[in-house]
Each structure stands twice: as structure tokens, then as C-alpha cells.
């Protein structure tokens, strides 16, 4: 897994590339929560290159969202691949997260 962090129009875009599994979830948590702690209140996680996510990875999404909402921040996910979207559907996470189909949409809405 590699992360690419871009700042655009007040948003912090985190591009996740590869597998997000139990082994690297802790590293992912440190980096994402680092952004939140720093004060990046509008976070977009770009999942266009995310090929797999485990429950440990999902937990980090939840953690980030919880922290951001507590501080009146915002977390959006965008560009989920079909397999990931299926996982989100099945586990009901589509009801928990704000999910956009494109990055542009998540930046404007």
C-alpha cells in the first residue's frame, strides 16, 4: 500500500494505492489520523487505486470519520472499485460514509 496526499481547494485528498489489510492498517491509521490531528478537517479518501480492503482498514475509515465529525470536519470517499463497493454494500458501510463516484464530484458537492 502507498499513500499519495494532495491538497486541493481546501480538501486533503488521500490516494490509497494497493491492498489495505491487517498488516498495513496500523501504518495507514497513523498517517490518516496524523492528517486529522494536524487539522485537515476536509478529507477525501480516493479509492480509485484501492484493490482490497480488510475490516482493519475499514475501521480506520470509521475512526477518521468519527474524529472529523466530532470536530465538525468532513470525510468523503470517492471512486470505489466495484469489488470494494460490493464490500461496502454488503457490510452496510454505504449507509455510514459519504461516497462519491468521481473526485470532481467530491470536491464540488
Amino acid at each position, binding site marked *: 500500500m502507498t499513500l499519495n496526499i494532495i491538497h486541493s481547494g481546501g480538501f486533503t485528498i488521500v490516494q490509497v494505492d494497493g491492498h489495505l*489489510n*491487517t498488516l498495513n*492498517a496500523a501504518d495507514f491509521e497513523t498517517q490518516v489520523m496524523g492528517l486529522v490531528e494536524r487539522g485537515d478537517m476536509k478529507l477525501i479518501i480516493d479509492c480509485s487505486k484501492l484493490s482490497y480492503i*480488510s*475490516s*482493519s482498514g*475499514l*475501521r480506520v475509515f*470509521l*475512526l477518521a470519520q*468519527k474524529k472529523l465529525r466530532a470536530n465538525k470536519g468532513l470525510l468523503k470517499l470517492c471512486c470505489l472499485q466495484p469489488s470494494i463497493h460490493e464490500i461496502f*454494500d*454488503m*457490510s*452496510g*458501510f*454505504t*449507509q*455510514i460514509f459519504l461516497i462519491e463516484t468521481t473526485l470532481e464530484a467530491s470536491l464540488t458537492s
Partner: protein
Amino acid sequence: MNFKNIINTESLSFRILTRVLLITVSLFVLTLSIYYIYTRNLIREAARENAIQLAGNIAGKIAQQLQPMEKLPQMVSATIEMGLFDKDSLIVVLETILKRNPNIYGASIAFAPNIFPEKGLYFMPYAYRNNNEIISTFLGSADYEYFLMDWFQIPFMTKKPYWSEPYFDEGGGNALMTTYSVPFYYHTEQGRVQGGIATIDVDLQWLTDIVSEVTIFETGYAFVLSRNGMAITHPDRSMIMNESIFSNSENWEEPLLREIGRDLQQGNSSFSEYNLKNKVKRWIYYTPLDAGGLSLAVVYPDDEMFASLHKMNLILLALIIFGLILLNFTVVKIVNRLARPLVDIAKTAHKIAEGNFNAPLPEVKSRDEIRLLRNAFVNMQQELGAYVANLTATTAAKEKIESELRIARDIQLSMIPHSFPPFPELPQIDLFAELKSAKEVGGDLYDFFLIDKHQFCFAIGDVSGKGVPASLFMAVTRTLLRSIADKVKSPSGIMKLLNNSLAMNNESCMFVTFFLGVLDISTGELSYVNAGHNPPVIIPGDGAVKFLPLANGIPLGLQENYEYPQFSLSFKDGDKFFAYTDGVSEAENSQHQLFGEQAILDVLMQHKSDHPIALIKAMDAAISQHVSGFDQSDDITMLSIAFNHGSANGTPRNKP
């Protein structure tokens, strides 16, 4: 140092020694060769200069003898030309010359034919020695037409003085002789005409005396050659007047001698080498003499000439061999002394390898690389000791944790029912379940129990993450489920309370996907709620297997007061139910291919009539075949129920 060490071809001393010897021997050979060539050239040059000087001395002595003799016939010639002698008193002149010059054997004045008409064709007064007397006579007759002889003809024609080839005068002195002829003029009525030739016969005994005095080294010598290369003097008397340089060239099969002979005839001087018949090398210096038409040669035997050099070489060689032997022993001794600590260090290293970190290292007094190595070893020994001590402590701690984890695993497993069949007194349900954690403890769970006489509650869940945190969350979920189910009976009610309890103060955002079902075993009516879990599969007694239709509620623990929709369906007799966690569908092989939901359906379809135990074992086997030895990365949980008494309807009915 023992002998084995010296000849061991792999030992340090042997390797150093061979290299040192190779270099030193090469250097010695090179130095010796240069020295030899240089010195040899030097000696040859010295011999050449010595030969030139020697030849010069001998030539001087010979000239001292010959030049006064040459004056005599010249003076006679001059006086005859001036007409100072009466032709009849010439005998007296010749006798006087002989009396005063002991080396002169004879003297004559040979007139050209018919110079004095009254004397006839021949007129040649001649004086010579016979024993101790001087005898005078007149030569010339029809038998001896002297004016046809070489000694007369050559100077007469060339008008120059002429030394004849030396010859043995057998009749007269029985000695080696040569004749010096000088042409003279005479004034007659016709004017100045060539009068004839004045001669002296020189006994060459004195020449042999002078030349044989010369000694060069032990067997070197000097000798005199005639114009034709004939030996005139030689230490080997049999050579004199018998062998020439040309005949020896043939005798000894040495063409170089012929070259020398020709060079000599052209009046040149040179220092050259040649070989005797037995290939013994000789050096020769030859040069023409000023008088007598002779040449002088001095001979240097090669072996004697270079004897001192060869002797010096032998001494040097002996010294070098002695030096090399000394070097050999010194190098072996030094290297072995230097290497001894290395051997000891190697022995200690073996002991260290066996685990003895306190094995003593040899003391090294020198301040060299060996000491560096020894210090590095001491350091390594200490570091290794510390590291191993640390490792031992860590291992102990790890073993303690592992032991605790094993206990935790036992506790965790004891929390879920694991005796099958669980309800032998209830023929309506047959059930089997399996939980395999990827680690010692896991986050998967299943549970089943009777709420009352007819209500059979069962659940399967998967906590986010793995290991100890997941196992704790799983334990909490399982405990809450049992206590809530004691008070609330409807699946949605149980689920709501369970979710609220788990979501409360869930700062770490742990969550659990959860499927909960309540089966009325008297009717076959199943009510169920799903919190984000993988849909279970219904296996109808007749017809295709299919996923249980459901709405996706969110996992437990995330959002308080979430309303979970409840569904229901009726089990028919012979219908089966299969629930699993994502450890099954996402079981990975080494190519990272997932087992997949279709494979689950295929296995279930294939084994639809099997007992739950056989069904789950078949699924296990299929998963094992898929992963083919690749490490299990997630907990695997399966739960299968067979209903043996039920009603007709399999269609779910939403009960909001």
C-alpha cells in the same frame, strides 16, 4: 613450528614463502645475468686492450731487429747506384755485412743479365755462413738462372723492396729463413738502368725466441704468420711451416679461421673468437707487423680468460643459496609466530560458536592487525554475549506471552459451544460449527442456544481486525448476546440492544459484522437480522442453493440506536442453512486468488444432501485444496444447520 606446518601447502607461511622466493629468485637471476653479461663484456674488452698492447710490444721488438737489417741492402743499393763500389770488391762488402750481423745468414748482389758484358749473362756475388765460416761465391748459371726467381722478379718488376715467404734452408743453415730483396739502379753508357737486386737472408731463430717468450694466462700464446697465413713461429713446433691458418680452418672445421686469415691478408687487425676442433673456444687478436711481410697473433683461451668470472659466479651462487635458505627459515619462523594467535583465535571462535562466550582469547602484545582482529573478537564476544542474553530474555518474554495467548485461546474457545450434536434430545435440528483462528486468538465467533423450549437462537460474527483486540471485542459481544437474549426475544430487539451496548464509548471504532437468527423448531419459521455480515446460504432439500435475501444493516458497534430490519422465512423439512465469515470467501492462495462466493455455492450444491458435519468438512477440504499450503491469513468460521421438520414456505417476509 612443526614440520607439518612448514610443508602444508595451504599454510600462510608456505604461501608467503613461495611468493617471496619467486620474487627473490627472479631478482637474483636477473641481477646475476646482468652482472655476468656486463662483467664478461668488461673482461673481453680488457683482454682485447691487453692483446693490442701485447701485440704492440712484440711488434716493436721484432721491428727493432728487422728495421736495421732492412737498412743494409738499401745502403748497398744506394752505394752501387752512386758507383762507389767496384764490381769486383762487392764480395768484400757482403762478407763485411755478414761479419757484423750475426742474424744475417747470407747476402748477395744479383745483377740483371748483361749489365757487365765482360762478366757474361750472370753476375751475382754471394756470401753466406757455413758453420762458423763465411764463404764467398758467385752464383748464376744455366742451371740456376737467378733472375727468374721470385725474390728477384718481384722487387725488380715492382721496383719496391720485398720480403720473401719464409722458407727452410735445408742445404745451408738448416734454419728458418726469409730473404729481403731491394732493387737498385746502375749507371751504364745507356744511362740509369735497373741494375739488379741486393738481398739479405735473415735467420728467423731470434723471432721464435722473442715470440715464444710470451705467455698468456696458462695456455695462451703468441705466434707469427707469413703473408700466406703459414705459421712461422708457434709453441707447437710441428705447426711451423707445416700448417697455415687456412689448413687449420679445414682441420678444425672452423670457417671463422678462414675469415680471420683473409682479413689478415688484407692487413687488418681484429679481436675475434673461434673454436678448436673439440669446441674449445679461443679468442685471437691479430695484426700485421711493419716489417718482414709478417703478421702477429695472440691467442687467449676463453675458459682461462673468464676463469675469474666463473669463480666469482660460483661464490655468488653459493652465497645466494645460503641467503635463500636463511630467508626461508626466517620467513617461516616470523609468519608462524605472527599466525599463532590466529590459530588460537580460530579455536576460540569455535568455542564461541558452541555457545561459550567467555572462552579466553590469546593475548596479543604486538600492535598490528592481529591485535585489531583480537580486539574485534573480544568486542564480538561481548556483543554476542549481550545479544544472546537479550535474546534469551526476549524469548522468555515471548514464550510467556505465547503461553498466555494459549490460555486466552482456550478461554475464548470455551466461550463458544463446541460439543456436537449439541441437542441430542431435539431431533428437529442437526447442527455443526467450526472456528479456526489465523492467530492464537481471533475475532470470529458463533453461538447458539435455546431461548425457550421452541426458540433456537444462533449467530455468527466477525470482529474487525485480528488478534487480541478482536478477541476481546468478540468476548464482549458473545457475553452481551447471552445476557440480552435472556431478556429480549426478537432478533431485531436483541440486535438493537447489542449494537447500542457495543457502540457506547467505542472510541477505537471496533465493529463486528453479525448475523442473528431465531428458529422456531416447532414450525420451521426463521426470523433473522443482519448487521453487515456475509449473507448465509439456504440449501433447500429440493432446488438450487442461494444466498439468503437480506437488507444490509451496518455492523454492530458503530452507530447507536440503529434500527436493524428483521426478515423471516420458513424452513421445510430437509432444508439446510450455511453461514460463514469472510475467512472462507477470501481464503487466499499463493497467487492471491480468493476462494470466492461462487466456489462456496458450488461446494454446497455438490454436498447439499450431506450432514452438516460432512458439509463443513467438504468445505474445509475445498478451501485447503484452493490455498494449497498458503498461510491462513484470516479466521475461518462456518456454521451449518439442518432442519428435519418444517412447513412449506421458503419466501422471506419482511417484518419491519
